C-alpha cells in the first residue's frame, strides 16, 4: 500500500512551480510577469499536477512518480483531447477541464490502493 507524505510532496511541487516560474522569467525576461506565471501555471495544471495525482497509487519515490506521471499525463491529455475534439467538444476548454478528471482518477486509484487487501 503506497504511503506517501502528500502534504510534504505538495509543498515540493509548489517549490518546483516557483523555481520553474523564476527560470521562465529569466529566459523570457521581456514577457510580462503575468504571462510567465500563466504559462508556467498552465504547464503545472495541465501536466504536472494531474501526472502527480495519476502516479500517487505507485510505490515509486516522489521524483520517479512525478516524472512518470507527467509523461503519462501528456499522453493521456493529448489522446483524450484528440478524441473529444473529434466528437465535437472544442479543445478550447480542454486545458481547464481535462486535468480535473485525471486528478480525480488519480485520487480514486490512490485511495483504492490504500485500502487493506483481503
Amino acid at each position, binding site marked *: 500500500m503506497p504511503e506517501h507524505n502528500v502534504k510534504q510532496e505538495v509543498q515540493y511541487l509548489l517549490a518546483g512551480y516557483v523555481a520553474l516560474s523564476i527560470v521562465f522569467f529569466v529566459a523570457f525576461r521581456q514577457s510580462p510577469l503575468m504571462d510567465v506565471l500563466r504559462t508556467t501555471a498552465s504547464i503545472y495544471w495541465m501536466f504536472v499536477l494531474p501526472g502527480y495525482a495519476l502516479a500517487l497509487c505507485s510505490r515509486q519515490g516522489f521524483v520517479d512518480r512525478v516524472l512518470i506521471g507527467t*509523461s503519462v499525463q501528456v499522453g493521456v*491529455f493529448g489522446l483524450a483531447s484528440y478524441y473529444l475534439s473529434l466528437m465535437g467538444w472544442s479543445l478550447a476548454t480542454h486545458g*481547464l477541464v481535462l486535468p480535473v478528471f485525471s486528478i480525480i482518477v488519480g485520487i480514486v486509484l490512490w485511495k483504492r490502493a490504500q485500502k487493506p487487501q483481503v
Partner: protein
Amino acid sequence: MNREHLIELVFLALLFGGLLYIGPGAVFHRQLSHEKPVYFAAGDGYLYAKLTNYAYDAGSFKYLPPYSAAGFNDSIEYHPPLMPVLAAAFAHTAGLHGHDAMALMMALGMLFGALLMYWLVRSWNKTVAMLGAALFVFLYISRFAIGYTWGQVLFHLGTFFLMALFYLMGKQDLKHWWVPAGILIAGTINAHTSETFFFYVFAVFFLSVKFVVRQLPKHELVWWLKQLALASLLAVILSFNYIIIFHNGYGADPENQLRFDKPMKPEDFGAVRAPLLTDFTMPVLIALLVGVAIAAVLACKQAHAALLASGFMFLVGMSNYIGIESLFYRAFQTRFAWPAYLAVFFGITLYFIIKKFTRNTLIIAIVGIALAGFFVQQNYQTLNAEIIYDQQWEGIEWLYANTDPMATVLFLYGDSYDQWVRMVKRPAFLASASDLVAMAQSGTLRRMVQIEPFVVNDVYLLYRKSFFEFGRHAKEQNITIFPAKFDLCSYDYYVIDRRSAYQPQLAQLNVQFANLFLAHNMTMQFQNDHLVILKHRAGGECIA
C-alpha cells in the same frame, strides 16, 4: 531533504534553466508571445504552425484547413495529431498564440526528455549522470540546434515519449508496468510514428543483450513479453483512429515502403543538415568514444537500461550506413537528440577520470556546470531563426483583415516566402522566380507560368468515405496540387515584394511586374516600404 539532494536540485535548476535560456529563450527573443513565428528557419515548422493555429481556431484536429486543401472542407488531417492538439489546448489555457505554444511545447518536450534520460542514468550512477548532463547544452549548439530551429516539431514530441519509454524500461518494479507503457507507446504512435518503430526494435535489442549476457532469467523474459503484449494492445486501442488514418495515408504511399540503397553519408544528404559526431568537438568526441567502449564492457556486467538505450540510439543515428533508404532521414533526424542520448558515455569517461580525485557531490556538480558553461562559451552562437520581415507580416495581416477567407493569393519572389508562405491562412501560391526571369529574358509575355500551390499535398487530399474507406480528392478529381504551369492572371490578390536582402535583382523584376499588372486590370490595395498588394478584377487580362 539532505544536503546531497539540495546540491543536485540546484545543479539541475542551473543546468535546465541555462538550457531554457540559451535555447528556446534565445530563439523566442526572450518573449513568450509573438504575432508571427520567429523561431523557425525552414518550412516544416511553418506547416505545423499552420496546422496548430487551425486546430486552435477550429477547436479540433479533424480536417485540413480548406484554404490549404484546394477548398475541400472534408479533407481529413493525416498528420500525427498529438502535437497540434496539445499545443492548441495549451495555447488556449496559457493565453498564447498557437504557434508560440507549439514551439514552446517542442522545447519543453526535448528538455523534459533530457531530464528523463538524466534520471535514468542517475538510477545507474548519479556521478555519471551529473557529469554527462553537461553534454545537454549541445542540443542548442552547432548543427544539433537545427533540430529545433528548422522545426522538427513532431520529432521533438516523439522523442520525448521515446525517452519516457526508455526511462520506463528501467522501472521493472513498477506495478502494472504495461499501463503507463501502453499510454506512452500510444503517445509515440500519435506524435511521431517512427519512434514507435524504434521502441519496438529497442525492446528486442534490450532483451537480446540481457539474454546474451545471461541477465534474463526465464521468468523475467515471460514477464517482459506479457507486459509488452498488454502495453501494445492498450496502445493500439488508444490509437485506433490514427492507425487507420496512417495506414490509409502515409502507409499507402509507395515512398514510405522499405527500400534498400547504398549507404549514405550525412554530407550527401540534402533534405536536412545532419549533425556529425565531430560537431561535439574533438575532445568531447574522444571522451564519447572512450565512454562507449567502457559502457560496452560495463553492460556485460550489468545490462542497465541507461546504457542499452543510449547505445541503441547511437546505433540508430548511424543506421544510414546500413543501406536502408527509408532509414536515412530518420537516422539523421535522430542525431538531433544525440546530446541527450549520448550524455551517459561522456559522463562515464569523466567519471573514470574524476573518481580518482573526489566523489564529493558538490565538486561533481561544480565540474558539471563548469563544463556546460565551457561548452557554451566555446561553441555557442546566439540562436536566431527569424525569417519573416515585419513588413511582410504587415501585408499578411492586411490580407487577413480585408480579404475573403478563400481569396486566392499569388506571391511573387520574396525572401523566404518558399519556407513560410505555407502558413498563410489563405489559398496561397508562389510563382517560380526562375520562370519569371526566363519570361523577362525572352522578352515575350505569357500567362502560363510555373507556380507552386501551397496545398498540404502528401496524401492527395485524403477524405473519409466511411470509417475504414478513404478517397483522395486530388486523384479522383484530377486536381493539380504540385508545382505546375498555372495561369498568372487567375488569382484574386498579388503580393509583390519591392525589396530583397538576398535577391535584389528579383525585387527589381517584381517592381516591373507590379507596374505591368497595375496597367492591366489590377488596383493597389496595400503598400508599405517592403511590398505592395494588388487586387485583380475577376476574369481580366493581367499582362497584355
